[in-house]
């Protein structure tokens, strides 16, 4: 297939996934902020949400302070923020439109329909007390898209590049959502594992729809290292870094088998995957959760570049 087509499919999937994850990050921020006010925590939760979303620089160029309104505006709909939910949907649609011939009719419907509906939102839909409806809508649309990919695309390279985009983006965002929690500074009188810490970790679980999975697997109260283990190392948890890398390495293998060649992307993906398979959660906490996540995000970005070099240009 055309390299440009593959590139557009890859980014279409990334942006649809990013829209969903931006909604999830905002939701985590919301839950944390709702607790923060209980202990007079001020606006630090929104500050950390913006850092975790990777939007710190752009945000503070426009806003002096991380209030709920400003954070929601910037992350949900600011056209100047290329990662805002509405920007993501717009970019996804642009990518889809550029390669319509490579999309199944249902995929196009999902993407184009999302874009049409997103255009109909009004200012009041983004107020702090109403934006949750938009966030639910975004998750729904993104699930619809991945559903269409799963049930209507031929299993060929077009599908594989789409899936690569989805999982690279998802791995990135799970790491970032975990990092939201890290970036929330606990009030000094709180201890790690204390009551507030507990609700915060629960908020993270809920944001990635993993609360029930947690109880199913661990059958005990929420512990920070177990939440981290679930979202980083457990292959049965579909948004975990390990699960994403099972998909990524398998997809890259299918591609290299079909094309009869391998490259740096395959090597790097294998290395990241091995690291996730053979690391224990104790080692991660030893190294520092935040440091681990930062390193992961960096290698994940590098992998994106390598995939691009190998196939998309």
């Amino acid at each position: 297939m055309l390299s440009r087509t593959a590139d557009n499919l890859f980014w279409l999937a990334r942006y649809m996934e990013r829209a969903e994850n931006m909604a999830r990050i905002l939701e985590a921020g919301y839950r944390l902020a709702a607790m923060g006010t209980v202990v007079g925590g001020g606006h630090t939760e929104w500050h950390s949400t913006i850092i975790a979303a990777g939007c710190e620089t752009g945000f503070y160029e426009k806003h002096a302070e991380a209030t709920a309104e400003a954070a929601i505006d910037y992350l949900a709909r600011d056209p100047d923020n290329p990662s805002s939910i509405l920007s993501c949907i717009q970019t996804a649609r642009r990518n889809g439109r550029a390669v319509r011939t490579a999309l199944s009719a249902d995929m196009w419907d999902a993407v184009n329909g999302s874009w049409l509906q997103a255009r109909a939102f009004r200012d009041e839909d983004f107020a702090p007390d109403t934006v949750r409806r938009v966030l639910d809508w975004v998750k729904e649309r993104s699930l619809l898209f991945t559903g269409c990919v799963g049930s209507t695309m031929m299993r060929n390279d077009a599908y594989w590049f789409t899936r690569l985009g989805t999982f690279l983006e998802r791995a990135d965002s799970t790491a970032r959502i975990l990092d939201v929690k890290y970036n929330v500074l606990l009030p000094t009188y709180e201890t790690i594992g204390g009551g507030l810490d507990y609700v915060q970790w629960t908020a993270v679980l809920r944001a990635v729809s993993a609360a029930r999975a947690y109880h199913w697997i661990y059958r005990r109260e929420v512990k920070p290292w177990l939440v981290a283990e679930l979202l980083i190392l457990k292959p049965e948890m579909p948004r975990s870094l390990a699960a994403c890398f099972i998909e990524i390495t398998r997809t890259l293998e299918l591609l290299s088998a079909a094309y009869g060649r391998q490259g740096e992307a395959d090597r790097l993906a294998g290395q990241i995957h091995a690291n996730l398979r053979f690391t224990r959660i104790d080692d991660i906490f030893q190294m520092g959760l935040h440091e681990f996540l930062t390193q992961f995000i960096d290698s994940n970005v590098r992998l994106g570049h390598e995939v691009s070099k190998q196939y998309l240009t």
Partner: protein
Amino acid sequence: MATAFDEMGNGDSCRMPYRTVSEWLASTPPEVFAHKRREAEILFRRIGITFAVYGEGGDPERLIPFDIVPRVLGASEWDFLARGLEQRAKALNAFIHDVYHERAIIRAGKVPESLVLQNESYLKAMQGFSVPGRVYTHIAGIDVVRVTENEFYVLEDNCRTPSGVSYMLEGREVMMRLFPDLFARHRVQPVSRYPEALLETLRSVAPPACKDEPVAVLLTPGPYNSAYYEHSFLADEMGVELVEGPDLFVDDDIVYMRTTQGPKRVDVIYRRIDDDFLDPLAFRPDSALGVPGLMRAYRAGTVTLANAVGAGIADDKAVYIHVPEMVRFYLGEEPILKNVPTWSCAKPDERAYVLEHLAELVVKDVHGSGGYGMLVGPHASKAERAAFAEKIKAGPERYIAQPTLALSTCPTFVDAGVAPRHVDLRPFVLVGADQVRIVPGGLTRVALRDGSLVVNSSQGGGTKDTWVLEG
């Protein structure tokens, strides 16, 4: 202006092809039409059949209004048209070949030399170069208007990159979805074979150097082009790659496309980019849409371009005057379809007549398209006509003039109900090295404003489904 010929028939005298449609119009309440029209709009919007209008601001992806009352042609009417279209397309192709080779028609004194050799559309780069199958305009969109029961005139021969065929095909799809019962009561000839016919046409003109299955692609300027929807639609229906300039490159005079599996050779390019932008090394150096080296590869005979570079010499509005002569000269036949009588402002006596009769004529810029740069005399104000007269005097060779024809009307659903509106017809003629293919029908464009004769989509015109009934 005399009362226009109505294709359904005036008053009680309903014409044969329209019998069922006429009953349907009479028995259907207006609310149903209004409802169906809304449904049609939703379908068009959902499929994404939009049209970009430049420089107007607002919604950059506008819908072309679609009228739900079909335009109906009988089998014999169509057969007559189709023969005329095929004849015309053959003559146009023979003309293009001739002017880039022997120039017999010029030497015979039938077409003035200056009109060809000094024409902006005449490309020296094409002189002496023989294209596969001697086909230059593989896809011609020939605009036809009807004046009476048996009189059809050709308004324009679009020989470069005519568009609108996706409206013909999607319009039919939408109609079949909205009015299955109406189709059941007619026998309408299908148009859906068009993409297949186009692909067969493209494959028939693969360069001799191509030994395997020809690889055809569709070259588009990209998503910002007004006809992008059509480009992606056709590529999709034909099952060929939709490429942009940067997807292609030329190595050792061979054209390749960049794929995830490395370079892949391309044999036939259905290009929807204008000549000027095709190759920055040969034409406009600032073109980012084209492919550097494409013209060298083309002239080396390793790739076919459809339509051929330089084909525009045949659809110039001043060259148009000579098409009936081309039919006689190359084919030895009498033209089946008429030309509209046309005055050339380049000739002093004809110019004088035009300036004298501006209020009755349509004056067109020979290089204009899309309804821009024209004067519709009877609808223009005195001041507009005076201003246009100055333009004609300043550059007379730029203008031609034609009488305002009484274009036929068709029943059309407008705000006031069903009323007659003026229409034209653009059938798409496919010329291959093996044969000429025309699917029965075309794009009917309709001037939605009462009395208006301007059907261009950029000027507020709409489209209709065109039915050709089985004999």
